[in-house]
């Protein structure tokens, strides 16, 4: 903190609350008695509603005659529109963020019972790993690195690299760092972690468009994945994060296209978030968080202001957050919330207000 800030704070600290503020209870708005008016019009509204439903049913039930143009030939059926042909979004038909859904138990669990775990992510048991001591730099395009134990930072400096069945135990700022220009990095069946006692800030730092993380286990770092554009995290486990001022499982601060699907993201530290979607550095568009188990953090999911086109569907939230399951500052349009539920009892989780 600067001394100027200190000085300004001191100036404000000297200000006492005036007694007039104590009169706030007189400003509490009493509920307005509108019920009588509503009751007066209720029978009319119900009548109109029933009439409308009957009319609509009658119209639908009436067999449609093929349209015959003046020339006498029958016109072909109108082809379905693109909207009608498009598959529905994951979970169910997406509802807009402002829609209200009743709090009821779901009849169908929204997500798979088999969550990614220690046994389904990371290096498969029995894989023989060769050790690469210290940092590893990959600068050959299309290179496949597999069956390695790397005891340092992996820096990816070339496009189309694949890291497979590799355990990375880092002690620097990054465990895996994708440099600008090193597009389309894929990581499969790998484990990314910080060395015991080390303060590794980033598990995977995306620095170029295109990052695929499949069946990976990221743990022991302050921030699991710092995502950018075209990032996909599937069937992966991000947990056992290290306490810091902003611990986060998956964070993005601008870009297009982040998908977190069928993954487990848990932040068991007191602060931060499990998934943070911000537009700090650039506009953030097209985010899909689907069929995943999310938990912990101050807010488990924090969607900042200025995000457009985000779909949050079919996820389960644990009750381990400190402030709430979701903090949502983004405004519609284009934002969808559907089929999300509490993890412990499957009760539907309403869209954030």
């Amino acid at each position, binding site marked *: 903190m600067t001394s100027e800030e200190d000085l300004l704070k001191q100036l404000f600290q000297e200000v006492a609350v*005036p007694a*007039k503020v104590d009169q706030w209870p007189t400003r509490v708005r009493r509920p307005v008695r509108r019920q009588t008016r509503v009751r007066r019009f209720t029978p009319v509204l119900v009548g109109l509603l029933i009439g409308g439903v009957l009319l609509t049913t009658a119209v639908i039930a009436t067999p449609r005659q093929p349209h015959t143009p003046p020339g006498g030939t029958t016109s072909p059926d109108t082809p379905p529109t693109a909207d009608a042909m498009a598959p529905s979004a994951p979970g169910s038909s997406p509802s807009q963020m402002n829609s209200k859904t009743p709090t009821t138990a779901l009849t169908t669990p929204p997500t798979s019972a088999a969550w990614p775990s220690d046994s389904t992510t990371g290096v498969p048991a029995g894989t023989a790993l060769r050790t690469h001591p210290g940092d590893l730099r990959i600068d050959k395009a299309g290179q496949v690195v597999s069956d390695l134990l790397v005891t340092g930072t992996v820096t990816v400096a070339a496009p189309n690299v694949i890291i497979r069945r590799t355990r990375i135990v880092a002690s620097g700022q990054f465990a895996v760092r994708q440099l600008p220009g090193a597009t389309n990095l894929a990581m499969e069946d790998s484990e990314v972690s910080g060395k015991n006692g080390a303060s590794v800030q980033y598990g995977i730092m995306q620095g170029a468009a295109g990052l695929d993380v499949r069946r990976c286990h990221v743990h022991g770092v302050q921030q699991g994945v710092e995502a950018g554009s075209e990032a996909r995290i599937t069937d992966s486990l991000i947990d056992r994060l290290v306490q810091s001022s902003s611990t986060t499982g998956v964070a993005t601060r601008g870009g297009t296209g982040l998908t977190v699907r069928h993954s487990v993201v848990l932040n*068991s530290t007191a*602060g931060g978030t499990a998934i943070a979607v911000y537009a700090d550095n650039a506009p953030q568009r097209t985010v899909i968080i689907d069929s995943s188990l999310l938990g912990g953090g101050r807010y488990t999911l924090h969607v900042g202001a200025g995000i457009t086109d985000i779909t949050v569907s079919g996820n389960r939230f644990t009750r381990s957050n400190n402030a709430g399951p979701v903090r949502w500052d983004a405004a519609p349009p284009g934002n969808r919330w559907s089929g999300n539920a509490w993890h412990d009892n499957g009760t539907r989780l309403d869209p954030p207000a």
Partner: protein
Amino acid sequence: MRELVEAVDVAAEDLLPFGDLYRQYSPPVYRFCLSQVRNPSDAEDLTADVFAAAFVAYERTRPDIDGVLPWLLRIARNGAIDHHRRQATRRMAFLRWFQRNEPSEASTADVEREVTFRSELREVLDRCQRLKARDRTLIGLRVAADLSFQEVGEVLGISEHAATMATKRALQRLRDLYEGQS
């Protein structure tokens, strides 16, 4: 996995009685309101409105103990925005009907109350009014309400890093006003 999920599950804490909440948080909320509207009388009104609105929503919202102040300040921020909007509308109406600016909004009573502030604080408040609304909000949250950068970010819906940078820039612009650079 089940053990892991259970390990991070914690029981929700009971709500703080609203009276205690008011006693604990009315100073930072009032100071924030003062930083936003400058006029002590308006700040009192705004603060009272904040707690009245908070009282109505408290049971429904159930903010956790660490999130109470950011929650109150979000209400206060919205109140301040509404206040400035109303002021602008009133000024426009006054101009339209009387073809002149409305008289100074500070009444005698306000002036008497203002002199109880240190002159330095009055100057800070005056200069804050010359800042853009966002900068004024950032400075109000950080300096008047004494929030951490994380809490500032929480009120504004931005990350801690973005809150830190934006607040520093806002403080620099306030400093520039002092130095006559803008």
